[in-house]
């Protein structure tokens, strides 16, 4: 699989750096920094809508790839993506959205343009939510990068984490950075949460999450929740999904979604309290939808859910 990348800023650099160093360097055939300064004639992003091909950056290299990754590019420049994908012969596009500024203004028309050209597109939000896909190219990429998955071996005598294997890394590398630090820790929530927090949220950490953290758009918090629950799953500890099920059971088998959310989601940026599983409402929404999809929970009507 040949990968082409459109990127901008430190967000894009971090991803390219980690993906390259994780054994994908020889698959990356083209990297192009797509920023507003590259638009010829001083045109503004809003001028691009009608005919983006007319404003195509003149220094865009020629390339041929299968999968096109769009990393950290301003949403307004997303209109260039269909044309670049066509020129580079891409058959699938992954357009990462980790910040409101990266949300493409013309998402629907991008989807339509790419669809008309027979090019599959996905907009993972955040990038590290990417897992399975109906598209073989995205699926192949997501086998290595996306929603974190670990395998952990626990020493039965010391009850410490003996070994952690990263099955699927986050594109930014937080998962493998955390895995290295998890080995040797007691298999208990406190030290594990501290490790996840320090590797994921701490800006000093090399692979820290660079996604938006505004409480109105808590993508960084969601990414952190995914990491924490992946570690808890591997260590056999109760995950947020388990706490959701427990919350429904504790309420007699049926509960209002809002009340359940209040019970499970921590209002702080940190994971705290035995009943608090995640720090972002959007993580709760994702998990609840997954539990419904898995047939474990169902709607009870009037904004309530029950165990199935």
């Amino acid at each position: 699989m040949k990968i082409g990348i459109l990127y901008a800023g430190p967000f894009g650099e971090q991803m390219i750096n980690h993906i390259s160093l994780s054994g994908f360097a020889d698959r990356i055939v083209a990297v192009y920094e797509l920023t507003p300064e590259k638009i010829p004639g001083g045109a503004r992003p809003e001028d691009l809508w009608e005919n983006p091909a007319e404003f195509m950056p003149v220094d865009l290299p020629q390339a041929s790839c299968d999968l096109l990754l769009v990393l950290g590019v301003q949403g307004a420049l997303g209109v260039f993506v269909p044309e670049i994908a066509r020129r580079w012969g891409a058959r699938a596009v992954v357009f990462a959205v980790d910040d409101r500024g990266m949300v493409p203004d013309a998402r629907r028309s991008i989807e339509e343009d790419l669809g008309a050209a027979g090019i599959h597109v996905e907009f993972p939000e955040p990038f590290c939510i990417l897992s399975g896909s109906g598209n073989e190219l995205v699926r192949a990429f997501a086998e290595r990068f996306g929603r974190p998955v670990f395998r952990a071996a626990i020493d039965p005598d010391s009850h410490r984490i003996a070994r952690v294997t990263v099955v699927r890394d986050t594109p930014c590398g937080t998962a493998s950075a955390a895995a290295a630090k998890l080995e040797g820790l007691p298999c208990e929530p406190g030290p594990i949460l501290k490790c996840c927090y320090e590797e994921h949220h701490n800006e000093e950490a090399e692979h820290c999450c660079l996604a938006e953290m505004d409480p109105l758009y808590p993508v960084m918090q969601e990414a952190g929740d995914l990491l924490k629950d992946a570690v808890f799953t591997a260590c056999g500890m109760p995950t947020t999904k388990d706490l959701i099920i427990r919350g429904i059971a504790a309420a007699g088998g049926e509960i209002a979604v809002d009340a359940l959310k209040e019970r499970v989601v921590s209002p702080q940026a940190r994971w705290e309290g035995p009943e608090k599983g995640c720090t972002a409402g959007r993580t709760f929404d994702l998990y609840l939808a997954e539990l419904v999809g898995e047939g474990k929970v169902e709607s009870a009507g009037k904004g309530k859910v029950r165990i199935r």
Partner: protein
Amino acid sequence: MPMTDGKEILSILLDFKGERIREFCRERIEVGMKPHAIFGELSAGLEVIGKGFEGTGETRYFTSDLIVSGRNMKRALAILKPHFSPRGENGFQTSGRGRGLVLLGTVKGDVHDIGKMIFVVTLESNGFSCIDLGVDVDKEVFADRVARDEPDILSLSALLSSTLPAMGEVLHELERRSLRQGVKVIVGGHAVTEEFAREIGADAYGRDAVDGLKKCLSFVGAGS
């Protein structure tokens, strides 16, 4: 003197690997440039990124830009700090309490401190003595240290709006322990507004480091 334009400063601040910022600082120190001047150049770049992040600048910047530029600014401060004169620019001794003792910290739940670090440098450069309690600081710790160190000023910082209530809790804790009267409280950070500062009963709001310095100078009777 090495010349670097604004665009280049931005590019150095946004360098993901952080190698260029070290080179930039060392090169300037070696040719005798004053650390305050270097700090000023970088601060100007940081302000451009901050404005772009808030949507009021020419270029749009993301959270990732804010994080990486903040991280690079910290790297720069680590290099520059030993070169700052122990005597403030205005000739005030910074040892002991200097013009006044300022206790600073980022409130509970918030781990951001680049703004606070810039404020520390600005205060120290102007003759204040500072004790930085770091990030994610409990209200009890703030109150304990106010009781122990008897600072003239307590400076609270927060970037995330979700951590704003923690600022009010610090003030409540000071009131509860009858410590509030003995210390002036200034609040600042991305999430803070002047209105919020009034609401929680802070003595002042610092819009940025320079504005905060003016308020601190007025607290110790030095005017602006």
